[in-house]
């Protein structure tokens, strides 16, 4: 798994590629926590390059969404979500918790 982060004026863009499983989910959690610990709660998560996500990865998304949405201070939006990642989100009943936008441009423009 690889993570790149970009700081924009109105949001942070986090691009993830590869496998998000029990081995790598802690790294993703760390990257996202770093952003929220800096008081930034508007996050675009680009999942376009993710080829697998397990329940441990899905929980990282949920925990970050909880933190961001608290006090209405922001939210995590998902961009470029591959079909199989969408199926995993759907299976877990997590689709209603995320705005899913077609690409990074649309997602960054959302904030």
């Amino acid at each position, binding site marked *: 798994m690889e993570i790149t982060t970009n700081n924009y004026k109105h949001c942070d863009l986090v691009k993830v590629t590869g496998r998000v*499983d029990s081995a790598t989910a802690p790294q993703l959690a760390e990257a996202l926590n770093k952003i929220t610990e800096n008081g930034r709660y508007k996050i675009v998560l680009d999942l376009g390059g993710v080829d697998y996500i397990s329940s441990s990865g899905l929980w990282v998304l949920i925990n970050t969404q909880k933190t961001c949405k608290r006090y209405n201070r922001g939210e995590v939006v998902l961009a470029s979500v591959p079909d199989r990642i969408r199926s995993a989100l759907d299976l877990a009943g997590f689709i209603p918790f995320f705005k899913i936008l077609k690409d990074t441009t649309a997602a960054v423009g959302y904030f």
Partner: protein
Amino acid sequence: MFKETFPGRYESLAKIAKFVTQAAVQAGLNETAIFAVQMSVDEACSNIIEHAYGGENIGDIDCTCKIDSQGLTVILHDWGAPFDPEKVPEPDLTSPLEKRKEGGLGLFFIRKLMDEVHFEFSAEKGNTLTMVKRKEDAR
């Protein structure tokens, strides 16, 4: 039949995924079914490491793949602590975001995604999880 033993640590998950994917392709499963196998095996192995062994590098996971005309059977074997699958609570799929609590999704995914799921626990032989994924025309 293919059999391989992997050390019980999270680093093994990507290797296990590769191993079962090869077998799933050879069994003639379609993309959706291959993804179901990958996800189920990954969740099952994560549970073995986290719950049966209670941590990484405690014990091994044996993975056996059997191909027949119906599809693919994956058998996972470990020597960790047994558990009662009936006592694992169903995950909460309806509560609002702030009430969702971590855990319980792995077994739920496995049961949803595979056509047959069977657990066997033995004091002498360890724990065996048998999962079957059938080809579309054999379902």
